[in-house]
């Protein structure tokens, strides 16, 4: 009777909110943790595939984190990498089949990069660093937050490249015809792969200029 009931942590305590918002800025998976660049940049020439890719990664990261977090006490440490890979690979197969069924054209554009979500270091990295040692709810938030942080960069890069490279956003022309008649031209350079890297470099530059604590020491 006298036992004090343990105060339950609210679902969105300050700590949990941080899990969700930190990856968007100061712990961004791409620009700060340097994870998951492999499958990120090749899909950003247009906004739509970038968006679909971001969505797929959010789904896989969230569910993989939840599943591994549920299983975390039952996985023998020696074979954890294989277990994690199997969980991720099954989720990615599901995502791939769904994409093929509902957005076939985008799935063709993404080609091998959907499969490469398996070896996307963000997902493995978060499983190793977070889900293996935390409860289900924080793991879910962490997976979702990191997926969002990844998606945010993808969408920014996709937006810039599509706007300046093709003069469209989401496939709709936004740069009016009279501007073209004045001599404006789409910058074909933006569509080419190297430009994605340079844009991410510039994003890192802006972000670190705003958050001086991220600047690397010499």
């Amino acid at each position, binding site marked *: 009777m006298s036992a004090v009931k343990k105060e339950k942590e609210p679902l969105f305590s300050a700590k949990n909110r941080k899990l969700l918002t930190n990856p968007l800025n100061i712990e961004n998976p791409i620009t700060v943790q340097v994870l998951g660049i*492999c499958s990120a940049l090749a899909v950003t020439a247009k906004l739509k595939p970038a968006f679909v890719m971001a969505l797929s990664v959010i789904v896989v990261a969230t569910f993989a984190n939840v599943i591994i977090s549920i299983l975390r006490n039952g996985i023998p440490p020696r074979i954890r990498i294989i277990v994690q890979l199997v969980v991720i690979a099954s989720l990615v197969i599901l995502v791939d*089949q769904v994409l093929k069924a509902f957005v076939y054209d985008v799935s063709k554009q993404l080609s091998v990069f959907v499969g*490469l979500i398996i070896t996307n270091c963000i997902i493995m990295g978060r499983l190793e660093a977070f889900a293996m040692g935390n409860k289900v709810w924080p793991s879910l938030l962490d997976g979702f937050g990191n997926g969002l942080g990844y998606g945010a960069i993808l969408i920014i890069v996709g937006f810039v490249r599509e706007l300046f490279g093709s003069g469209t956003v989401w496939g709709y022309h936004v740069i009016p015809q009279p501007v073209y008649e004045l001599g404006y031209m789409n910058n074909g350079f933006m569509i080419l792969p*190297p430009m994605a890297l*340079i844009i991410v*470099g510039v994003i*890192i*530059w802006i972000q670190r200029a705003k958050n001086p604590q991220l600047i*690397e020491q010499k």
Partner: protein
Amino acid sequence: MQELFNIFIKSIFVDNMVFAYFLGMCSYLAVSKTVNTSAGLGIAVMFVLGITVPVDYLLNEYVLKAGALTWLSADFADVDLSFLSFILFIAIIASMVQLVEMVIEKFSPALYSSLGIFLPLIAVNCAILGGSLFMQEREYPSLAQATSFGLGSGLGFFLAIVGIAAIREKIRYSNVPGPLRGLGITFIITGLMGIAFMSFLGIKL
């Protein structure tokens, strides 16, 4: 023979894993601080790609493709297992890396100690899985062509990572603006190197 050589050159320069498809970027950025370690990683990647791509080719040809199982029995003519390819490829890669590691340790301890930690890490390198997936997508007609694609891609990765490591060693002495230091400038240099590699696009093979 001519065809094999063409695929080899094409996968080194024109379809370079790093500059054209951004594969293997994570280890490319993380390990490229000095030329020696990056050369070790490059050799390991080349080695593993040269083995896993042909093995996955055989797997794809005789197990996964639509109608690939007909060598077992004619009843399997319309079985298509290609949706299983991700999980099987990654399993093959993980076990091949393990196997290669044990073989090297047994027969060439010197090479083993120089590759060190990089061998196990390769299992989750996107360039390796990417190599197998591209092989599947491009439908190379023969085992030899798939092998030459695997080796060529590995060599392309080797060139890229050694190149960036050399540049990063030099750039340590220059005055990069604070927020760009480290990661930012590496991205931009990689972009510039990618532009340089695009000049190979004009080669008709």
